[in-house]
């Protein structure tokens, strides 16, 4: 059941992105940044949490889930350590993903070559 929910929620978020891509002149980079900011805002006002509870990976795997992690971390940091926590909390929460992206991204880029497009 949770697999179906993850599929539906994740698929729906991607469809919204696809419709924006097809209907406007925005690029995938705009979609990534836009969805991220939407995730940060929805996470900040507490609207993303129910989606995570319902869809689990369907809500956390899309880039908006990354934004949710950032803003939740920042707010939790602010609760615990005040203004300094607001600065440290977001990156602390997202550190694992960012470090993985940098390390794996670098290694894969160094060891592999672009494939010729056919």
């Amino acid at each position, binding site marked *: 059941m949770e*697999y179906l929910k*993850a*599929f*539906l*929620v*994740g*698929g729906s*978020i*991607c*469809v919204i*992105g*696809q*419709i924006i*891509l*097809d209907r406007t002149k925005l690029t*995938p*980079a705009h*979609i*990534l940044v836009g969805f*991220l*900011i939407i995730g940060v*805002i929805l*996470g*900040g006002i507490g609207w993303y949490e129910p989606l995570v509870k319902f*869809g689990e*990976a*369907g809500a*956390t*795997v*899309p880039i908006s889930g*990354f934004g949710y*992690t*950032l*803003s939740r971390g*920042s*707010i939790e*940091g*602010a*609760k615990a350590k*005040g203004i300094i*926590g*607001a*600065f440290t*909390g*977001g990156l602390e929460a*997202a550190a*694992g*993903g960012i470090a*993985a*992206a*940098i390390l*794996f*991204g*670098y290694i*894969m*880029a160094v*060891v592999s*070559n*672009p*494939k010729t497009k056919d």
Partner: protein
Amino acid sequence: MDKMTNKDYQKFVEEKIPKPIYLKNAINAFLIGGLICTLGQVIRNILFSYNLDEKTVAIGTSIILIFLGSLLTGLGIYDKIGKHGGAGATVPITGFANSIVSPAMEFKREGFIFGVAARMFIIAGPVLVYGVGSSVIMGILYIILTKR
């Protein structure tokens, strides 16, 4: 009269041509995006079975998906997924990994500093700038709005 027929014709063309593509793209994005998230759920459940807490599981899932996204990009498979999946391949965190590896690989001949390392952040950079920036603002807003 002429204008009317032109308009009608344009409407006819607009209705006829792009819609099937839109629908096909949307369905593909739904399927690919949904499948990647389902894979995320599988990883999540496996990690939960090791008695890890929610936060560790979330981070672990992201790390594994980013690894898979980087690997598949390096092997040239993710581009093929992206060709069919569109936003379904871009929006998940694996697409973020793809946006790092793809340009870095492309510009390797410019060296390891300005080629690989700098180009890694051509899309990831803006993502981090706006993500980190706006989340700090969220934290500060939380302090301002709750301290009354």
